[in-house]
């Protein structure tokens, strides 16, 4: 099953997002080895050249690094992964807040509602 990709956005950008999310989620733990470009391309259902481009870009931002002969590895810099996690979560929250404001809820309403819903889920 290939990855779900939005046809209106550049493929390599979405590959970066997906792999970054997997790193944050610990599917690829810090310091671990990434599958080969070909394997990743196969799983994602994309062209290996595009996957290569995505990984090169992630190398440029130091989220992954390559070791000449043995392949690509996830960064061991935990604070970097943590920062990314916060960044990703903040983006999602911003998006969520915008949607809530669109339907006319104030920040206080939203926070109240979040507490209420999460209480209900606990039960």
């Amino acid at each position: 099953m290939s990855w779900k990709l939005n046809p209106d956005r550049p493929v390599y950008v979405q590959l970066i997002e997906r792999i970054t999310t997997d790193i944050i989620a610990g599917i690829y733990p810090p310091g671990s080895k990434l599958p080969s470009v070909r394997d990743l391309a196969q799983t994602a259902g994309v062209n290996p050249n595009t996957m290569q481009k995505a990984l090169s870009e992630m190398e440029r931002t130091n989220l992954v690094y390559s070791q000449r002969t043995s392949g690509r590895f996830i960064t061991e810099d935990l604070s970097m992964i943590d920062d990314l996690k916060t960044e990703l979560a903040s983006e999602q929250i911003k998006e969520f807040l915008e949607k809530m404001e669109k339907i006319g809820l104030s920040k206080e309403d939203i926070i109240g509602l979040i507490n209420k819903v999460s209480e209900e889920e606990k039960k």
Partner: protein
Amino acid sequence: MSTILDCRGLTKRYGNKLALDHIDLSLDRGKIIGLLGPNGSGKTTLIKLLNGLLVPTEGEIFVDGKAPGVETKRIVSYLPERTYLNRWMRVSDLISYFCDFYEDFDRSRAYDMLQKLNINPNDRLSTMSKGTKEKVQLILVMSRRASLYCLDEPIAGVDPAARDYILSTIINNYDENATILISTHLISDVENILDDVIFIQNGHIRMQDSVDNIRMAKGVSVDSLFREVFKC
């Protein structure tokens, strides 16, 4: 040399009808390229020219620096729009046939793909459905280790599941110096595996760009752009 195909002022006329009008085009090695255009835009004419099945009216075409001929057929693997295989032959016969014809044919790759697609090598083509015949033909073409694969409408007749398998086979098998030229109308099915696309219309190249550049610049998929550009 990094280009596998070069066209300079390439022109083809059928009587009064101009099918290709002074096309300049070059394709890089190691790319998967979609050749897209409405019906009658010149896609098949271009593919036939590069396989030496047609001769240019004007201009030149070079495959790996050579005019189409015996030497270029050695490195070009071609899937025509229509089948040319003998209906009475068994798949295993066809594989032997291709082995004799092409030095770069990989027999084990072919049998492997047949197995994945549940095709019995002892079946004759005449007993197969249209889709299965197309799969056999594509397996034969993709089992060569060619420098240029030329696929004219490769997935039109097969079901979506087999289409996925075929596309992943293409991704998995193609080596990084090989170029694959795919002519198709099923753009949304293939656009994730393409590097570049060529839009062709009325014998002219309208555009040649990468899928990601198009999506970035226009904010839409290649499929949507095609529908917009070639709106009837």
